[in-house]
């Protein structure tokens, strides 16, 4: 019979399931960050002049900025000049159908459980697969198009729907928003674009799957989702990366725009490579995600399940501009080994009668360090704004940490802001109690953790809730000591 320490060691040494690499011919630009590479990327992608200008403005902003210092972890050294800013699977010509996608790539996604073949694909889910920053395939495009839904790679949108892109790009996360957003604006390679026309309820889940494969590259995608008046869309993002000893930077930007009475549900199941048990390697997940409820009575809801990455650093936010608009943030962030998470949300109540709800569940195991950071800001016009925040931390073992940094800025007396926080620990006596009823330690932890995160997982589309639940139990296996 293994004692708990042996179980811990066993699991800590367990390999990250998605850590394989794909051998494929790549176009990779030489390392270095400068105007030339930006022009190179823009030219490679055959972009219009205005977009190149926009990228260059982003780069100019980037050069004036410094890495922030307020975060609750030591900023790792990032040598941005050592990275390559363009990596794409070589392809001979324009692809006309999925059959023309490199079989090696299809196999990679199949191995990750994301079949791109429409016959095999999950029914009711359309997938845009992004491999090293380049969209390789989008499923069910035709079917969606019949309803007027645009769901394609960012690059394709620039070519096919330049007016839409130009109208909304950078309107939620400006090119100078923060240093990583500025960097992304300058060098973003591809990503996903979605437009839901007026009054359309998107009939399937839209999903982007990000895969980092190449070495010494950064991953910089942009996602832009526009939900026109009275429309609805549920969007899901997933991600994995091979195990590498070097850290890799992922600095994506996601912008959401909801017009009058529109609703966007954006869910993330983040499982980037977290590094090994000593904290070597892993992804730096420094992402800017923001949505604007531009229209009246619109709604944006973020749900995130963060289990991977060496460092997760992001605050999916909502600007509640329209009157009676609503913002939600549901989060589960798990850290173990030496992982770090500094995550949370910002909700800006601008319109009157706006409502927001924040449910954050942090889980810390091993020597992981988990911080919740959240801002609820209520502007002078936001009469009767309401916020409810529930922020819980669960500790597993004695060497992990959890911190809560709630900020409230209210400039309207009619606002009602509620904040609740709890910290609990999975105790040995709880585990023993379950053991004594025939439940082994791993199942016991899973049972407790599932109970703890239920409220958040319930927000995910069903198939993904099940996936997320599995991912959580795998992530936490053996972390009780």
């Amino acid at each position, binding site marked *: 019979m293994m004692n708990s320490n042996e179980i811990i060691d066993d699991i800590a040494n367990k390999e990250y399931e998605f850590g394989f690499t794909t051998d494929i011919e790549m176009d990779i630009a030489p390392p270095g960050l400068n105007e030339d590479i930006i022009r190179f990327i823009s030219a490679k992608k055959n972009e219009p002049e205005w977009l190149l200008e926009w990228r260059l403005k982003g780069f100019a902003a980037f050069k004036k900025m410094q890495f922030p210092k307020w975060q609750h972890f030591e900023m790792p050294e990032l040598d941005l000049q050592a990275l390559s800013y363009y990596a794409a699977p070589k392809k001979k010509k324009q692809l006309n159908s999925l059959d023309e996608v490199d079989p090696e790539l299809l196999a990679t996604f199949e191995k990750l459980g994301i079949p791109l073949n429409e016959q095999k694909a999950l029914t009711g889910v359309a997938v845009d697969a992004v491999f090293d920053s380049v969209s390789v395939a989008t499923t069910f495009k035709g079917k969606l198009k019949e309803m007027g839904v645009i769901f394609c790679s960012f690059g394709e949108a620039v070519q096919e729907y330049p007016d839409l892109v130009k109208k909304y790009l950078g309107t939620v996360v400006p090119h100078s928003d923060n240093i990583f957003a500025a960097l992304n604006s300058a060098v973003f390679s591809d990503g996903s674009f979605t437009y839901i026309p007026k009054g359309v309820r998107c009939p399937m889940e839209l999903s982007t799957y990000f895969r980092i494969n190449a070495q010494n590259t950064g991953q910089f995608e942009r996602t832009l989702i526009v939900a026109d008046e009275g429309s609805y869309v549920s969007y899901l993002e997933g991600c994995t990366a091979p195990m590498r000893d070097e850290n890799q930077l992922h600095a994506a930007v996601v912008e959401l725009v909801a017009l009058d009475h529109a609703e966007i549900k954006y869910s993330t199941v983040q499982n980037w490579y977290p590094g090994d048990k000593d904290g070597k390697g892993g992804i730096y997940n420094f992402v800017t995600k923001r949505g604007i409820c531009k229209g009246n009575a619109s709604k944006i809801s973020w749900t995130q399940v963060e289990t991977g990455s060496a460092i997760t650093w992001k605050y999916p936010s909502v600007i509640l501009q329209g009157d009676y608009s609503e913002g939600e943030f549901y989060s589960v962030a798990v850290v173990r080994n030496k992982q770090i998470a500094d995550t949370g949300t910002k909700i800006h109540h601008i319109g009157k009668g706006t409502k927001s709800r924040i449910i954050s569940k942090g889980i810390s195991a091993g020597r992981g360090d988990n911080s919740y950071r959240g801002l609820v800001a209520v502007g002078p016009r936001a009469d009767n704004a309401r916020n409810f925040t529930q922020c819980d931390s669960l500790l597993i073992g004695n060497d992990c940490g959890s911190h809560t940094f709630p900020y409230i800025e209210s400039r309207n007396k009619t606002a009602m802001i509620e904040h609740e926080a709890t910290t609990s620990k999975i105790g040995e006596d709880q585990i023993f109690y*379950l053991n004594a009823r*025939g439940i*082994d330690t791993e199942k016991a932890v899973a049972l407790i953790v599932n109970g703890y995160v239920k409220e958040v997982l319930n927000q995910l589309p069903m198939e993904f809730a099940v996936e997320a639940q599995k991912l959580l139990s795998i992530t936490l296996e053996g972390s009780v000591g």
Partner: protein
Amino acid sequence: MLTIKNLHAEVEGKQILKGINLEIGKGETHAIMGPNGSGKSSLASVLAGRDNYTVTEGEVWFNGKNLLDLSPEDRAREGVFLAFQYPVEIPGVSNLNFLKTALNEIRTYKGLPAIEGRDFLKLTKEKQQLVDFNANLMNRSLNEGFSGGEKKRNEIFQLAMLDPQLAILDETDSGLDIDALRIVSNGVNKLRDAEKSFVVITHYQRLLEYIVPDFVHVLYNGRIIKTGTKELALELEERGYDWLKEELHLKEA
């Protein structure tokens, strides 16, 4: 069914059990009494497999298996059940979901298929009535915010659901009101049969009027210093433990 031979155990480097010998046959009910801190809960913990206790000497056999070799969960699956003196609260885990998981783990171990949802609900209803357990408590988080008595009754409800061969009740009577004591005891009595054995740890003779034991043992300072029948409990109620302690000192002197 259960044979304990010369069992010694320590916790935090402190010797707590100092040579326990006990033989429990099928269908028997044994009561264990003894002053506070004498080692009653420790014995229960060692039998259930709590890992902060280290067995330093002795053996425990359960239905021909070396119990000390088994993990706590396997002991439970083999049919050992401990009703805790202090049941813990587990927020977020619903009582029913917990029970279903436990039941299915035990069934899987025995090579049985998982119980069907409908059968599970039927069983729940039946057992809930048997031990008169408040149905509202079944849907709440496991023991969270339960009153002391409700926690104890939940232990008995779990006992009824999991149907073990050997049930160890650690002061299940303390914290129960007079009616609850009767109800819980009746429930336990209904569960008693020729195949099942019970170890009832208690301070009060009153419980033993309801659950009549075949044997009464007195545990003192990590050893069983006296064994008798239910009359012994009456005598203890009247005279306390001092006379036994004196007898022991005389013997040892």
